[in-house]
């Protein structure tokens, strides 16, 4: 859908209207951020259903508690704080359950993603290149799974979403310094996990 100048109304006005119960104003705010939120949740969870659940819960929570927003940070940071907390909860639950329907273990104990092993029958597909890509993707996924939820979250927001560590610290209710240390630990773990590949 094409964004229009009308959809870029000043956030402050929309927030104040939403705080007065104006649902249309809140929905206009949602439009400005919901694609990015869905993209983040989709990449972290790998599941459209889980991403939708996080999307739903995040914006419902935002609607219920928009009255608490006191303009001490940007609305972007406030929304992402809600989303990252939900994503962290999801990562912690996944780590506790240690189950992922898309990932199975073969007879040699190696984990691989079921989806990555579905044959690509599109015209022009290069089987050898696809195999290499799937192997790399599997190793990256496995390496990321070794991170703690917080390390995973910081790495996701820095490496994939391109946010500044200061912003990441605000979103995770911590300091920039802590976010830096977390990024350091995450990269060290990833280097260790991916070293045999290179």
């Amino acid at each position, binding site marked *: 859908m094409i964004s229009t100048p009308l959809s870029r109304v000043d956030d402050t006005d929309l927030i104040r209207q939403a705080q007065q119960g104006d649902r249309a104003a809140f929905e206009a705010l949602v439009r400005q951020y919901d694609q990015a939120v*869905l993209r983040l949740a989709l990449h972290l969870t790998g599941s459209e259903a889980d991403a939708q659940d996080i999307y739903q819960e995040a914006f419902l929570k935002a609607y219920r508690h928009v009255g608490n927003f006191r303009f001490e940070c940007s609305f972007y940071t406030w929304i992402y704080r809600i989303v990252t907390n939900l994503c962290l909860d999801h990562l912690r639950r996944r780590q506790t359950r240690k189950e992922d329907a898309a990932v199975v273990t073969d007879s040699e104990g190696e984990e691989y993603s079921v989806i990555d092993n579905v044959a690509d029958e599109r015209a022009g597909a290069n089987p050898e290149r696809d195999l290499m890509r799937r192997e790399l993707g599997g190793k990256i996924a496995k390496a990321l799974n070794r991170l703690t939820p917080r390390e995973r979250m910081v790495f996701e927001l*820095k490496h994939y979403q391109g946010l500044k560590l200061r912003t990441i610290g605000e979103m995770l209710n911590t300091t920039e310094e802590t976010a830096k240390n977390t990024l350091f630990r995450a990269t060290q773990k990833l280097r260790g996990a991916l070293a045999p590949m290179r």
Partner: protein
Amino acid sequence: MNCEWVKNNGALYVYDELADDARHELEMHLHKCEGCKAEVGALQGLKTAMYEPLPEVSPNLLAASRMRLQEALETAEQARGFSRWTMDLAGWMRQVRFQPALAVVLLMIGFAGGALTSFIPRNVVTPNQAADQDSSQAAIASIRGITQTPGTNNVQISYDRLVQDTAQGSLDDPKIQQLLLYAARSNYNSGVRLDSIDVLTQKPQDNHIREALIFALRYDKNPGVRLKALAGLKDFVREDVRVRDAVLEALLRDSNSGIRSEAIRALRPASADSSVRATLRALAEQDSNPYIRTESRRVLATLPEID
């Protein structure tokens, strides 16, 4: 600048998080130190190896998520009063778990807040009680307070009254617009809501008016009001994504088939939107109303193919 510092901050350099002076010093160090150069090179290699494009959010997933959220928002309520603080307390507790003194202060505030909110003022008539009174007191909006002079029959009552008034002016007058917007959203009389929407459709370029029309299309209980709002919005389906979403929602979920039929016609200018096409395709196959199925197929047949 030493090798230990480079080892601890190499990731920050690779991710462009160093201050300008620190970055410059590090780069000077890398010119002289092969070990640190290799270390930073390895981190750069990691960043490159980990690169993968983010999954695109399909229009269908986005549209489905938005519709699901809109449905939930219809029954969601914003936290008011004391309950507003419960989310803040949960968020604050994450931060204060290592700050016992602040935690104690918060607990004290919590107890004090609980004690204060359990205090119920006596002798105040609530709006519900006021509504139960007979029509001769309909001019009274609310009772603010009642005080009796001790030892006497003298009672003092503070109250608000409703005073009927009339406003007249141009549609460009902000006061007139404010009253019309209020009538469109809040009046119990559907005839008044219909009249206000009818007038407001003359100025849909105004953002607040357009939002009121969208609100009416989504939430008004009277189909005549919703139809009037749709008529006022249809010229903006193409350029305003909020209008498009509201009309799509009406097409999918309005209880009135006449409104749904009008919604199909209104969406035609926005047929390039993949959500519109996907919705029409789904309706053409699955809708329980045969007229809607036929209309959807007819519109789809007239649309050019887009890859």
